[in-house]
């Protein structure tokens, strides 16, 4: 088996996922192409006969559809000999792109593969294009379908996370993100985004609200109460979890992940691939895992995915220095910490989806990128990135910094 090394990684700043967001007027292929060019400027991968480009896309339809990886490569003007594919597993699509690329390198079926992800939520709204999950009545019956916000509130109810708990977590996320930006901790990976005329559109995460406090968060209305109580989803969730008398609607726009546009890319390869480019590896991908769980509760499996990935290495939660747990909803991270016993100091040290946004298909790549930057900055070794996933799943990936090839 080969080792799969991470050679370099880039990410875009995240634009607000709204019509007035800084990136809204770009197309998803523009974002993908910009990331690929930036990664090529830093690594030169396009001239080293890469095996493939794998992009994660959460909702691969319309301008984000067909095969965004191949389209973005061609759009960027790279050689037609470089192929591309997309992978999709909702929120973990980007991490799955990394895992797919790594698996192929480990299996000896390619020595340089670009993994990336794109999502422009300002253009393609989350779940706006559907799928059986939500619009097929029989499937909905089978899985007791509820939207993820209801799952998050159900989870908070079952695990006893109060509004105060989730708001406190969100305030801390904003604080950490603000500190990270002010100290320039993301500087090594952020690629500023310009339009065709070279006009700067965005060079830092646009979604953040550094002035956020628990008090300002407490003012926000529950985001999912209406659809839960009037729309019937609470009753559907209660019938699946009959011990619940009433769902506590604690999640708001302030303690849930932000809707944003964003993209990221990362070069993964074997030792031979890296040597061909004369690159030093920054980390190796140690293990990865995916798990499923009840789709109604949906979001509670990151600790299980992490445990499975660590188990392959004979490791435990305490053997990991840093975690990036996607902040889909505050309750997800709280539950991860409670179940794993990992202290908040080692989880999401630079904020996350609540403070900076969660561009579905790109997030997994951004998490590994941010994790690696932080391991380097603090001179630590082992990190895990994990995300909860729609329809009741989770994915985790474990990386370890390396000083040259093993």
């Amino acid at each position, binding site marked *: 088996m080969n080792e799969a090394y991470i050679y370099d990684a880039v990410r875009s700043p995240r634009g607000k996922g709204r019509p007035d967001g800084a990136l809204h007027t770009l197309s998803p292929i523009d974002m993908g192409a910009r990331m690929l060019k930036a990664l090529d400027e830093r690594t030169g991968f396009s001239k080293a006969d890469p095996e493939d480009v794998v992009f994660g896309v959460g909702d691969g339809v319309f301008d984000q559809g067909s095969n965004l990886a191949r389209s973005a490569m061609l759009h960027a003007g790279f050689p037609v000999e470089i192929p591309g594919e997309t992978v999709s597993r909702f929120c973990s699509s980007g991490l799955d792109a990394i895992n797919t690329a790594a698996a192929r390198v480990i299996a000896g079926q390619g020595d340089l593969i670009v993994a990336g992800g794109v999502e422009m939520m300002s253009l393609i709204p989350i779940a706006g294009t559907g799928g059986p999950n939500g619009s097929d*009545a029989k499937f909905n*019956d089978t899985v007791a379908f509820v939207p993820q916000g209801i799952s998050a509130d159900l989870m908070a109810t079952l695990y006893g996370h109060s509004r105060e708990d989730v708001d406190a977590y969100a305030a801390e996320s904003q604080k950490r993100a603000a500190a990270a930006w002010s100290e320039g901790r993301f500087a090594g990976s952020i690629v500023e985004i310009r339009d065709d005329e070279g006009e700067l559109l965005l060079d830092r995460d646009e979604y953040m609200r550094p002035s956020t406090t628990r008090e300002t968060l407490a003012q926000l209305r529950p985001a999912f109460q209406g659809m839960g109580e009037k729309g019937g989803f609470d009753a559907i969730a209660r*019938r699946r979890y009959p011990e*619940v*008398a009433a769902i506590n609607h604690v999640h708001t726009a302030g303690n849930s992940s932000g809707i944003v546009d964003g993209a990221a890319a990362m070069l993964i390869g074997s030792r031979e691939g890296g040597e061909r480019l004369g690159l030093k590896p920054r980390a190796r991908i140690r293990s990865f895992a995916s798990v499923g769980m009840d789709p109604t509760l949906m979001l509670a499996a990151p600790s299980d995915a992490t445990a499975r990935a660590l188990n392959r290495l004979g490791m435990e939660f305490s053997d990991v220095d840093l975690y990036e747990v996607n902040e889909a909803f505050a309750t997800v991270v709280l539950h991860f910490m409670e179940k794993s016993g990992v202290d908040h100091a080692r989880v999401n040290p630079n904020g996350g989806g609540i403070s900076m946004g969660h561009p579905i298909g790109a997030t997994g790549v951004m998490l590994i990128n941010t994790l690696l930057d932080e391991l380097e900055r603090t001179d630590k070794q082992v990190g895990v990135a994990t995300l909860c996933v729609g329809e009741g799943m989770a994915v985790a990936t474990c990386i370890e910094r390396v000083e040259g090839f093993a």
Partner: protein
Amino acid sequence: MIFVETRQDGIAVAKIKSGDGPHNTLDKAFNERLLAVVKELAADEDVKGVVLASAKDTFAAGGDLDQLLSVRAPAEAAAIIAPFTAATRALETMGKPVVAALNGSALGGGYELALAAHRRIAADRRDARFGLPEAGLGLMPGAGGTQRLPRMIGLQPAGEMILAGKVLDPKEALAAGLVDAIVPGEALIEEAAAWALGNPGAQQPWDVKRFYLAEADPNTVANRAWVLGAWARQRSRSGRDDKAVTHILSALHHGLERSFDAGMAIETREFSKLAASPFARAKVRTLFYGPKAGQPKKDDTIAAKLKHLGVVGGGTMGNGIAFSAARAGLRVTLIDVSAQKAMEAQDRIKAIGERQGKRGRLSEDGLQDILGRLSTTHDYASLSDADFVIEAVFERLDVKHDVYGKLEAVLGPDVTVASNTSSILISELAKGFKDPSRMIGMHFFAPVEVMKLLEIIRTPETSERALAEAHVVAAALRKTQITVKDGKGFYTSRLVSSLTAETLTLLSEGVSPAVIDNTMIDMGFAVGSAMLVDLTKIPLLRDIMESMTGPGMPRSMEGTKTTEVLDKLLAAGREGRDATRGVYDYTPEGQKAWPGMAELFPPTEKTPGPDEVRTRLMNTQSLEAVRCIDEGVFDTPLGADIASVLGWGYPAHLGGPLGYIDVHGPAAIVAECDELAKRCGERFDVPESLRSKAQSGEGYYETSQQEKAA
């Protein structure tokens, strides 16, 4: 039968006549005949156009439910409708204009027949109704309704109508696009023929090349959101196995994203699966046939004599009875204890009418008429010419006997007195009269003006005349009647007490109210039985439970914990919903779990989970209903089942406590109860009559599938 007459101008008028009743019902034989006629019309070169009309007073009432009830496998359902769907498809594609001349209502399959015409012209008749009401009986349109209507008027309007089983009057139907024109009845056939002659190239929109209607595209963002929203709204409150909504949405969603013919294939598949399910059969049986079961024949001689109704007691029940009777056209005199109380009752009855008015069920004039027929007083002498009296005073034997003494003094010797009691034996009440044969029970349900059910209780002494008169009064009030033998709790209170006793026992074993209610709502109950404890008010429920114990106590209450559980709750200051503190907390933000429950009744390792909760709550009702049959409490299982649906919201798709034995299978019920008897004691002992059903496989309505398979 279909009578075809081809006119000089080449228009063939096809008049349908099917079924023995006043309305055309479409059965397999008719469907086959229709297919043959359409083939003849298509082949006949003299025929330039077709007018579909009716030889009866209305156009067509829909599919033959008797035939549908005999269906056991999807293929049998498909075989019934296959000739109909083939005929309607042939009709609309034979290259000749087809007009449906709707002389009256066209409902269900009848409206689906009209949908296959290129134009629908309705006679101007206020009593006509159009639409697809199948969902109301747990069924779905199976002859093109889910495919043609949305392709005509859009997914959302069609879907809302089909899911609600809503039917429209002519004006509404015209506005919604269900009919194209309304003409005077006498001009109907001519107008229809004229349209056919003027539109020789008529084609259905969906048969025009490149047909696309965005409103009917299930994959637009708006329509996807609608499907999800409709699914959640409907399925959050329908029972797990009550799947009409799911099959309807599937036919709409998957049918509309494909060609028309593929859509029809999908609709047939969904319809057949649904129609063959025991749950749909149970719902049709209980909701359609149930209200007719055990209903006495109308006795016009007695009805002509009953003009003046006396009501004693101006509480909620008495006011509701007085209002309903006055609305039914009877002269009503309501007696309360004082002039002041009598005046207050008058105001409250007026308020009932105003509430009905706000809901559009009563006009201002109608209310004035009702009030004109009603007087309230404290003077019993006003009842001297009363023809029938209903007593609805406080539920205490001495109070009621006191009233009977006063009645006896003023009433004619032959006047029947009915007590609206829910818990006192009628034979005990009858002791308040010199002649106990004039006493009968009429157990109304609150709110009287809304609830359809009326339980009539006879004792061995009750005269046939008193019974006949009670039936007439009940019929005038348009109630669905169940007639039962006197005995503790009669039928409805006996069953509800069984359910409540088991609920309280589960609570005492540490089961949370939420598990009980969510489990019952999942079965299809609108309100769970733990919530019902709070709604009843705990002090009152304690009285009821106490009255149900002692001699004659239902077997289902043996070994249950009732008053001791309620006493513990009362001691903890829990009185129910109105007091905002019951087995739940009621806060401004809504209903919440009360943490104190777990302290009063701590869960243990033996605390039952949702499966045991379900089997205990469902089976205690079914067992008690079986015992009622064994004791001859009522005559017809179907009457008892519809009473359960109307009385305490038993899910219709499970049939009722007896129908549930059929859909679940007698053998499965017996096995569950044998298991429960070991754990909970004799109240789950299986009556011999049920055990023998488990052995024979014969249910109360049909042979159970499991036994048939075995």
